[in-house]
């Protein structure tokens, strides 16, 4: 029996998770629909004043993205935990940290990327202009992977714990705050004409930090959960 190379293993993990998501389309769609509905609620609640909507758009879209990411985190490890796949992932010779990274990447492709792609459309509903939509999309593109990476830590820590759905929100939301501030801040400062480089650089820095540290912490948390 030949041993699987690391890149092959990563590719297989991503492919498997995407395939599972494709077979259970409703699950993945739920978060996207949730994102759309939440962002549509604000104009209904606040009123259709275009100036107000333009002002709150970055914050609303970012908070909605954050919440829909939170909603999808429960699925990240739970099904694999229940049917024993996770135990196999821990046992294989490839490092768990890298495999966890692959699972997070698949999670982002399923629940993060659709939000990034939908955001410009929803931004239009809030009366944002062309350039601003570009900045919004870019900030989400840089920020949502960080959300998936941080969220994975929370998902792993609360695996199989009672009341995990609420608990994961309490653990993860405080850690999401910097991403929210820099992400929404990039759009707001672009609208104000201050320039976006500082906020986007900080978002990028958060992403780099999360890429290095989060899979490691997630792997440790998974080992603890599976003991």
């Amino acid at each position: 029996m030949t041993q699987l190379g690391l890149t092959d293993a990563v590719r297989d993990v991503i492919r498997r998770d995407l395939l599972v998501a494709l077979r259970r389309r409703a699950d993945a769609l739920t978060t996207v629909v949730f994102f759309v509905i939440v962002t549509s609620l604000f104009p209904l609640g606040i009123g259709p004043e275009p100036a107000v909507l333009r002002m709150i758009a970055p914050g609303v879209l970012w908070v909605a993205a954050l919440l829909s990411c939170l909603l999808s985190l429960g699925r990240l490890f739970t099904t694999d935990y229940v049917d024993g796949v996770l135990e196999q992932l821990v046992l294989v010779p490839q490092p768990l940290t890298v495999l966890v990274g692959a699972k997070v990447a698949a999670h982002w492709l399923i629940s993060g990327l659709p939000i990034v792609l939908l955001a410009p459309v929803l931004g239009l509903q809030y009366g944002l202009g062309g350039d601003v939509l570009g900045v919004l999309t870019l900030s989400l593109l840089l920020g949502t992977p960080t959300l998936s990476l941080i969220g994975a830590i929370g998902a792993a820590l609360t695996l199989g714990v009672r009341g995990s759905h609420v608990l994961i929100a309490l653990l993860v939301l405080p850690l999401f705050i910097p991403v929210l501030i820099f992400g929404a801040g990039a759009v707001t400062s672009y609208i104000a004409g201050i320039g976006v480089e500082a906020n986007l650089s900080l978002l990028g820095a958060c992403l780099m930090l999360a890429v290095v540290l989060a899979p490691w912490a997630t792997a440790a948390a998974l080992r603890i959960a599976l003991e």
Partner: protein
Amino acid sequence: MSVTDINWFKYSSPQALYPLAGKLTPWFSALAVILMGAGLYIGLLLAPTDFQQGDSYRIIFVHVPAAWMSMFLYVVMALWAAIGLGLKARPSYMMAQAIAPTGAMFTFLALLTGSLWGKPTWGTWWVWDARLTSELILFFLYLGVMLLRTSIDDARRADRASAVFALVGVVNVPIIYFSVQWWNTLHQGASVSATAAPKMAAMMLLAMLIMSLGFWMYSIAVILARLRCVIREREERSSVAGQVERPVAVGGV
């Protein structure tokens, strides 16, 4: 027996730690009372009135030490958590568990006194500036550590999971500390630093430092007392209660 002869690893067993914590608690409690009394006396009666803020600035003697302790205790908690994960030592986890509520209390105290101070000086109870927000996040992190622990029934898993979360949250501490330098905020910059001359009267500085020491001693006393409760609680469950019970009866603590 000289100091160097003490076998510190003796105290890595809860049974040895329990009487030690009991012996130390009254000393640190007494130190805390004396230092906090002296700090409040100097701060409230001897320190001069601020020419800009009047007497309302005096809340600084609680606010700044509480904020320092909130950050310091988080780092100490994370340190014990890391030692626990690294050495698989149960007392380290117990220390981390004992520190969390005190840390959360100081964080809440810093937020509360800050908002009471903000009203007369800034004209508002709360602003969403970087330092206030990051201190609020610290409070949530303390709550998260405690809630994660109570949600998991298996003690071993609860220990290790909350330790991992405490270590993840440590990223926030430097953000709080440097927030007034990194962002242009309403919260003033540090009045005290190790390198530059302090920007406040010597008497005020003295009061603040004595109060900080007092809070520090208070934290040690309360944490050690809580550590005893944690040991009792856990050891009773794991049916070695007899070993822990004895020092209480004999030592007469």
